[in-house]
């Protein structure tokens, strides 16, 4: 993954993250990559990325200033190193060059800042700036936001962790460039000038002690490059005191030897300033790559995207969701006319009811009749019709109030209405008490009957 991919992914997640079915299809085709999410995302991105007219992706376009900044800052660091070297090694022939200055700028200072870098790395690995505005990510985002006015790229975010590592990596590359600059400055100076190096300090350092220091510094190369290790003699000879502005004549006599310091200085620069820093650069690169992978997974929506690829899509619910499934009667509810229950009827018809129970049921609702007929549920259609022909006069139909009225009953009512003068339907309640059914059920029956074109018939 590249940094530009990180930005492009932000767009793509927004654009395609909701098409769960397509994501799952992709996932099924790339199931072998499930254990490597960054790779999975990368392959997915390649399928969806769209190039702009100039052949770059929006992310590449957006990330370009970061590369530009890198280039220019490296250049500046290099020139800075070069200038520093020239300044430090400036030699007008009157006064020798104090190599401690050089060692400070070319070795000690970079070493100190390397410690700073290591501290920054450790910190970046552990936590992230609570003061978000001071994280490099914040400023990077601001700078890039300033450079890009496009709507799409303006919404790009830089993860704080990633921002830290971009900065850390950049610092290391600048450090290397600074080292190269200073080394180049050293080499150019000693080629074009004769420089007399001395060491000079107010501190009570004996040449012996200084030698031990120099040997320690030269430790990495003293075995295979002895010519870059100053001898004890050289060290003793190049101690310099500026007393009275006079140069020790003995020193002048050995001026030619004083130049012999340069291989040591060059090696110190190469090993500490450049070599060590390159090592840090490599570490920073690893840290950066790790942060990039992590940042990619932390993009808003990426987790859901990966889940959509890995987890089966489950669809449940209507096949045709918009088909109207119901035709609710309740909307057509109107005031139904209600029959009044009389004390006696010519005939009581029990619908889906046993004959023996009929008088008792009729009594429970408060009525009676001279004749009772029962239409049993298990009778055939023809049998039921035949029964109904016995009806005459005013009929009372006792029905199970809890059972919904069905068309079959309407058919029967229609037959009955041919023989009866009037029909009253009474839905009854649950056994064993019966009685008139709940108002809730009565209203169902009333509404139902209202919809049926049956003459002479009413529900109580």
């Amino acid at each position, binding site marked *: 993954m590249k940094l530009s991919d990180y930005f492009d992914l932000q767009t793509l997640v927004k654009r395609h993250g909701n098409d769960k079915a397509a994501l799952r299809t992709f996932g099924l085709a790339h199931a072998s990559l499930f254990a490597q999410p960054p790779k999975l995302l990368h392959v997915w991105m390649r399928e969806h990325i769209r190039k702009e007219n100039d052949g770059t992706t929006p992310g590449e376009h957006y990330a370009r200033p970061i590369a530009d900044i890198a280039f220019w800052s490296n250049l500046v660091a290099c020139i800075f190193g070069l200038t520093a070297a020239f300044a430090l090694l400036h030699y007008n022939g009157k006064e020798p060059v104090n190599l401690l200055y050089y060692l400070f700028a070319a070795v000690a200072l970079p070493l100190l800042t390397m410690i700073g870098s290591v501290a920054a790395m450790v910190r970046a690995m552990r936590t992230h700036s609570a003061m978000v505005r001071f994280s490099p990510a914040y400023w990077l985002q601001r700078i890039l936001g300033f450079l890009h006015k496009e709507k799409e790229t303006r919404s790009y975010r830089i993860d704080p962790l990633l921002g830290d590592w971009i900065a850390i990596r950049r610092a290391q590359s600048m450090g290397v460039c600074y080292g190269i600059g200073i080394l180049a400055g050293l080499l150019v100076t000693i080629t074009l000038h004769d420089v007399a190096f001395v060491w000079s300090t107010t501190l009570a350092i004996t040449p012996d002690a200084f030698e031990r220091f120099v040997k320690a510094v030269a430790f990495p190369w003293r075995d295979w490059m002895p010519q870059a290790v100053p001898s004890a003699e050289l060290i003793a000879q190049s101690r310099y005191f500026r007393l009275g502005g006079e140069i020790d004549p003995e020193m002048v006599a050995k001026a030619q030897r004083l130049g012999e310091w340069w291989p040591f200085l060059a090696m110190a620069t190469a090993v500490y300033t450049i070599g060590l820093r390159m090592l840090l650069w490599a570490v920073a690169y690893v840290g950066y790559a790790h942060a990039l992978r992590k940042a990619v997974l932390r993009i808003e929506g990426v987790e859901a995207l990966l889940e959509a690829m890995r987890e089966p899509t489950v669809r449940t619910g209507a096949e045709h969701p918009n088909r109207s499934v119901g035709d*609710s009667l309740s909307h057509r509810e109107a005031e139904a006319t209600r029959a009044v229950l009389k004390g006696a009827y010519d005939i009581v018809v029990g619908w889906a009811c046993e004959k023996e129970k009929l008088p008792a049921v009729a009594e429970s609702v408060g009525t009676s009749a001279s004749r009772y007929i029962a239409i049993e549920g298990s009778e055939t259609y023809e049998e039921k019709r035949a029964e109904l022909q016995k009806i005459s006069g005013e009929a009372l139909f006792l029905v199970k109030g809890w059972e919904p009225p069905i068309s079959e009953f309407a058919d029967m009512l229609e037959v009955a209405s041919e023989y009866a003068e009037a029909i009253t339907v009474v839905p009854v309640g649950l056994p064993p008490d019966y009685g008139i059914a709940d108002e809730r059920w009565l209203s169902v029956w009333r509404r139902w009957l209202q919809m049926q074109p049956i003459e002479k018939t009413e529900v109580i």
Partner: protein
Amino acid sequence: MNKAPAFAVVGHPNKGKSAIVSALAMDDTVAVSDVPGTTKRHSAYPFEVDGTRLYTLIDTPGFQRPAEVLEILRKEPCPADKRFEAVRAFVRRYKDNPRFADEIELLTPIVEGAGIVYVVDGSKPYGSEYEAEMEILRWTGQPSMALINRIDESDFTDAWRRALSGYFHIIRTFDPMQAHYTQHLALLESMAQMDERWTASLKRSVESFTAYRKRQIKHSAETIARTVSEALCHTESVTIAADVPDESQKTMLMERYKESLRNMEAHAKTKIEKIWHHSRIQKSEDTLSLQNDDLFSEKSAELFGLTRKEIVTAGAVTGGIGGAGIDLLFLGHTMFLGGIVGAIGGGTAAYFAFEKLSDIEILGRKLGSYTMRAGPMKSRNFPYVLLNRLLYHTMRIATLSHAKRETLHLQPDTRFVERYLEESDRKHLETLHRKMRKCDEEAQKARLSYAEHLKRVLERKLLSQ
């Protein structure tokens, strides 16, 4: 592989066929009503995993003229092995006859191969008028089971069991108004027993359904965690020109802040409803109440959109960079070393420059301004209140049957979390609340473990009932 099974849910009108389909298909758009004859056409509710159909439920209208249909079927003598054909012939013959519209609708899927799920209401007495329809179903010879659904409190289940056993081998009870996970699974298992050709498909459905349920729980937990953490870190601010903010501006800001928190909560609830496939809930609930004394606001001066503290720090960083050299140019982390002196210098300079620059006017506008900020929430109780409400909502929604159509009354009892979570759970969440308040990287991690913890709690509750 066998064709995915279909199950026609059939029965008398108004016995909860649509309610059962609605609950099993987790679809709250199915027309369920106490008006008999609500369902007029059959309609399919497939369960698909990765685009593969595992089974289909078919909602159907109820029988309207079973006795007459049976009479037509019986008109000619028909040996048992020809009965399926006879029913099919009936369907074909009366396809366009409005008299049998409902029977045609419900028999069509069956003659096309669907299994039969015969629904009765166990809270009403059995009656012989049911025999005609059961006989018609027996004529089809399709695999079948009976489901006893008790709509009311009264209980006639035993009579029903005796009556049904003459027609059905598998008899189960099911309550569509209780979206119980275990009951749902058990029903799928029973459906698997109806025909061995369907077993594999339904076993897979059970696995997928289980995995899906866990995912729903996970998403709910994540939604709660995200909302709590975002609400804790949320701030609202206004830029004001004058030095002294007037009270009305402050009140307005506070209202805006409260409104945002309420919106966050409402948004989370909608999301949870969506996770659980509840798209049309009618609910009555009270809104998140926020006491004014819990809220916090502060005023600070700003320059270029940065507060003085930030400007001073930026100055210090810049100074530090100057002092310590190139290495620090991009770092901002490492202000120690030689940079300290530079930092102090830079910081001091920035402090004073802030005053000066703030007063400079460009085109009549001062560079500096004041910002009034409301939030983040300081109340110790707030995350609890929010968690309480969201957890309650999740529990209610996750156990809400899709067959329910009445208004849902949501009254989170303030001690819900306490009753619901064990002491150790609460302690743990409390620690995480504290971490989440920091709104930094650690807070993000805390949010993840918060979600993980809630997920376990919800799983414990929701997968066992």
